[in-house]
């Protein structure tokens, strides 16, 4: 059996990223779209940590740490926007959130 190389981790990250992309493009529920976005960020993190392991340098993990911090900030704001929107329009279906003014 071949040893687990960074290529394996990159393939896994690519697949996870693709699943996230499918989620963003296909689903209509705004919250599920946000969750697919988180999947994509996780895929990026897996890549970064795999590179950090391969080059034996901790920078990749620090980068992944910052990605997690920024993802937290983005999730908070995004969900705040969803809540504010839901209070006005009573929907989270992306197809119905189309008008800038109503």
């Amino acid at each position, binding site marked *: 059996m071949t040893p687990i190389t960074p290529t394996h981790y990159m393939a*896994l990250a*690519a697949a996870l990223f*693709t699943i996230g992309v499918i989620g963003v493009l296909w689903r209509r529920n705004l919250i599920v779209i946000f969750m697919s976005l988180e999947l994509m960020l996780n895929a990026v993190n897996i890549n970064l940590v795999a590179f950090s392991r391969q080059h*034996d340098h901790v920078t990749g993990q620090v980068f992944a740490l910052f990605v997690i911090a920024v993802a937290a900030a983005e999730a908070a704001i995004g969900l*705040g926007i969803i809540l504010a929107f839901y209070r006005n329009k009573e929907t989270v279906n992306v197809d119905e959130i189309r008008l800038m003014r109503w």
Partner: protein
Amino acid sequence: MGEAIAFYSLAALILGLGLAVITARSTVYSVLFLVANFLCVAMLYVLLRAEFLAVIQVLVYAGGIVVLYLFVVMLVNLKRGPEDHADPRRRDRLGLAMAGLVFGQLLAVAIYAFWPSQATGGASATAARGIGNVEQVGHALYVEYLVPFEVASVLLLVAMIGAILLAKREL
């Protein structure tokens, strides 16, 4: 050998749970599958010897961000399903084709970049592991990347204020 078993099983779990996230019929199920996905990714980090990041992943991502998602899902308690109004102008197949192209592109880059050096690639045995993982990350964070660290903390403060403002009923 053990690493291969761990990697393949974790990879199967991560991808399977990821598919479950985007295809679950109820949003709460999607959130729960997302938590399980993050826990499996944390296990993957442990496999990659990044223990600090694994625990931070569980603490921040699975224990904080997804709780936020769960709260919002419960507050957005809809009477009808969010996707009952299926817009007939949706381009499902085009979206799937684009996603397939993205995947193919990423895979091609990965294999091209690493194919010739697979003999020397892989998890290099880290002999110089005198200090632990936490100390390494801490040192890098506080010495080399101090400014991004402070900027990230300001970003989180701004995000907190913004979230509170957005969630208030009247300003």
